[in-house]
């Protein structure tokens, strides 16, 4: 079985076997055996739904610790644009930068230009694309994994352009290496992420290349320290500035890119929420979706502002970001000039090729497969269709699949075995 690195880990010693993650998983990748959750790696798309619902603290994002960063001479934070909508409005950009520095960063990279460049590159890419249609955005790593795992025939429809955060990582390393006369390898580029899924795109890029970023820290992991530092700074100021503080143009991209004029002139669609994405992908597969050239997909509800490592409520964040965006000029000639200057000389293409994910190489035997799914059907018919989850699989259908694969027994179903009930009592009713 190929080993897939994931954006989170499950600590069995903390897992209480509560089934919440198993029930929340949209791709049915979690099983709970002997009171402990585990993962079927070939089904997991790293959406982080499990992490969101885990109450025992067993499921943790694979983000960095500062100790791991000590080997770097110069540490740079690459904040997700979403970060700016997380703090009280009185906290300014300068406060945030100082706050991030106070927790150990040497610099914070503003990548408004990179965001604008990728936007234009995406627009040109769509214009030149000959099909198959529609093209699908690749900024959300879960969308890419979902296609690799469940829609392999659509891998060629995924946009082959670097996400802005990667371009930012590349640029900042060049910049600070020059500025401080050190090697790019001595510089850490750390993404301040709204979700655990971005860590996987850094640790194991879907295109099998090396990321320009060195790791990620969750917004929720830095939030408290940054807020305390920012507040202290604000107190020291003689005349605190009034009105929304964050004036970086990066907030333009804290909400959907689709909303900006560059992309909205294409025949495009915006889809957020994993179940909605799956519905649209099913339509694409059938050839039902026509006359759409580009789909922007975000796994989290309402995009990255709904990420599972954010702090503030998604609606409040959206409201704040709307206000911050309203503060910005509609047209920024300075930004436009920079983009115009750099665009013709840049290569935005992804260096590796996206591949499908499968369960590993083994001989394919159609007769065996047919036998297996017939067996699966027979098992399913014998199950109660209650999807209670007590067998350790999320649905009766999942159990039937597991049984047909030889990974579970029909007697795992509580309707078939008193033994199973006794075992469950022992695991879950230890206080009785």
């Amino acid at each position, binding site marked *: 079985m190929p080993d897939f690195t994931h954006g989170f880990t499950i600590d069995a010693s903390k897992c209480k076997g509560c089934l919440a993650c198993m029930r929340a998983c949209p791709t049915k990748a979690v099983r709970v055996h002997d009171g402990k959750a585990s993962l079927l790696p070939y089904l997991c798309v790293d959406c982080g739904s499990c992490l969101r619902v885990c109450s025992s603290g067993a499921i943790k994002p694979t983000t960095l610790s500062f100790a791991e960063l000590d080997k770097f001479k110069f540490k740079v934070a690459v904040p997700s644009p979403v970060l700016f909508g997380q703090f009280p409005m009185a906290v300014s950009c300068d406060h945030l930068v100082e706050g991030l520095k106070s927790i150990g960063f040497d610099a914070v990279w503003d990548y408004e230009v990179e965001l604008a460049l990728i936007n234009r590159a995406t627009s040109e890419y769509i214009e030149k694309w000959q099909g198959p249609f529609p093209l699908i955005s690749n900024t959300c790593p879960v969308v890419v994994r979902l296609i690799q795992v*469940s829609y392999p025939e659509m891998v060629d429809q995924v946009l082959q352009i670097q996400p802005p955060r990667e371009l930012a990582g590349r640029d900042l390393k060049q910049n600070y290496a020059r500025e401080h006369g050190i090697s790019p390898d001595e510089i850490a580029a750390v993404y301040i992420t709204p979700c655990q899924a971005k860590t996987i795109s850094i640790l194991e890029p879907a295109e099998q290349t090396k990321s320009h970023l060195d790791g990620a820290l969750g917004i929720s992991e830095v939030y408290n320290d940054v807020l305390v530092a920012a507040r202290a700074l604000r107190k020291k100021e003689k005349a605190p500035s009034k009105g929304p503080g964050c004036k970086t143009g990066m907030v333009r991209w804290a909400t959907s890119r689709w909303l900006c004029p560059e992309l909205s002139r294409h025949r495009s669609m915006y889809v957020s929420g994993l179940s909605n994405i799956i519905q649209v992908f099913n339509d694409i597969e059938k050839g039902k979706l026509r006359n759409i050239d580009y789909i922007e997909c975000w796994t989290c509800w309402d995009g990255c502002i709904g990420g599972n490592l954010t702090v503030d409520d998604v609606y409040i964040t959206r409201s704040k970001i709307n206000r911050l965006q309203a503060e910005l000029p509609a047209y920024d000639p300075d930004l436009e000039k920079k983009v115009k200057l750099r665009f013709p000389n840049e290569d935005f293409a992804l260096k590796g090729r996206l591949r499908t994910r499968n369960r590993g190489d083994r001989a394919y035997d159609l007769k065996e497969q047919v036998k297996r799914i017939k067996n699966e059907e027979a098992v399913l018919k014998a199950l109660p269709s209650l999807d209670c989850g007590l067998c350790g699989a999320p649905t009766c259908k999942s159990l039937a699949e597991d049984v047909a694969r030889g990974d579970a027994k029909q007697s795992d179903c509580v309707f078939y075995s008193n033994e199973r009930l006794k075992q469950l009592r022992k695991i879950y009713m230890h206080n009785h």
Partner: protein
Amino acid sequence: MMAEVLLKKSFEIKGGDFDKAGETSDEIKQMLKSLEMPPGLIRRTVVITFEAEMNIVMYAYEGIVTFVLTEDEIKLEISDSGPGIEDINKALTEGFSTATDKMRMMGFGFGMGLPNIRKNSDIFNIESEVGVGTRVSSVIWLNKHA
């Protein structure tokens, strides 16, 4: 000699039932995915089934889609009782459609149905009798996707 039939399934489809249109192709897709068939093959089969299903929903009174899997091929038999097709050659022309305004409003009737089925099939056959119904048979070879 005919290859051994490994799997055979039939699906009934009702004319005019736009609400359920697409369920048959979804079910066939799920089945092929659990069989771990090659992605390209799944896509072709799903497109054929979906277009066939839509044709029945849009034009016929009722129909049956039969899916047959052997070691060599997937065969889809689609038969309906309905108005039939007057001019088959015309119906096989891309862009030709007799869809009503209502169907077009729902996003269907681009005149790609039968052409799409033919394009995705390795063997394609169509017979139709006006006032009786239409019978389409489509074969996809498995070895092309090994």
